[in-house]
């Protein structure tokens, strides 16, 4: 999965406009980033990356970029 695709998956999940999020977007400023979204994110990573991400690490994430790191995407550049 590319970084762009990842961001568009997150946009889908949060039901926000395409192109409204970027790597540096702060999760605390995204109103729809709530506990239901976290569950949706866990499912998204499980489905696309084949593992269950740690809810604790997700809770510690500040930006979309941090979520990419959880998914292992930062390694692909």
């Amino acid at each position, binding site marked *: 999965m590319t970084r762009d695709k990842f961001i568009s998956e997150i946009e889908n999940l949060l039901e926000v406009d395409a192109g409204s999020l970027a790597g540096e977007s702060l999760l605390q400023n995204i109103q729809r980033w709530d*506990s*239901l979204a*976290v*569950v949706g994110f*866990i499912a998204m990573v*499980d489905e696309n990356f084949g593992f*269950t991400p740690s809810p604790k690490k997700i*809770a510690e994430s500040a930006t979309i970029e941090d979520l990419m790191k959880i998914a292992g995407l930062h390694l692909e550049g």
Partner: protein
Amino acid sequence: MALARIRGIRISGIASAVPDQAHFPSEFFDRFGKEEVLKIVENTGVQKRYIAPPGMCASDLCVAAADRLLTEGKWERESIDAVIFLSQSPDYELPFSAATIQRRLRLPNECAAFDVNLGCSGYVYGLWLAGSLISGAGMRRVLLLMGDTSTKVSEEDRSVALLFGDAGTSTIVEKTDKKERFTFVLGTDGKGEQSLIIPAGRCRKPTDETTRVRREAENGNHRSEEELYMNGAEIFAFSLAEVPKMVRQVLVASEKTVETIDFFVLHQANKFILEYLAKRMKIHGDKVPISLDEYGNTSSASIPVTMTHCLRDQLSRKKMDLLFGGFGVGYSWGAVTCTVGEIVMPEMIFLSLRDMDKKDAQ
């Protein structure tokens, strides 16, 4: 993971009861806002649930279900060797509720009676326990009661306020000469203690003036330490890690496949989790009956409630290969494959306080 095979037992009747008072998500529009409530409902799938009024306990619902089942199946009360009450909402701190239930159901004094404290995994554990009493301890007929009333839920906590429904159920497990086999897989991971917990009110943290006070928690939710806390993300991560694994293991151990099982009756945690798990395990949605839209998450009662609500006609008429899967509080999980059918299955019982008064007066 514990694996157990029990032969020579059968489920011969199931009955379920809920309080007659229906509750709807719209009751929370003022508190959380309509949009937020509808978003929660879209995720959980709970459109309606039944909640016990003050004065109605899980044991009352179980007794109503058992009474109807014993009557409809024409089982002699003297033939019940043991009654198990599996619940997280007993009548009293003590005595245990099964003793009271023995009296109320007019079961013989020779009957063994005890409580078990388990939640979402309870139906599978309960069948395993009842089956073990028959196959290993010489009993012939066991009455397995389970259910909860979720009185300790804060209506100011949106993570739990709209999810749970109350129910009580009754299952008869008995000895049979048939060779049919129940295959169980059971597991536990106590690391889940803090993910689904009512921290105060028992021995670890007794009630005091501070434990009763509701305080602001995460996401603007409010609850006291005597009310249920649920970490949905942790529960979901746990379910993803353990449920597909236990289902795979029980299928292999019982030499069955996703195709040969007629129905996967799973604990009704919430709609999103159930649908995602089914997709992950490549089980067609038609094989995973859903009752939570109508009754909510009814804890240990959710598997029998789902059978009463969705499979009653079929189970009354014919035998089917079923897989039951429970998972949650503890963490604790269990799955069983078995053949069930041509059994006594009364319609869903809707219990009112007035019905209870009438019964007591008899």
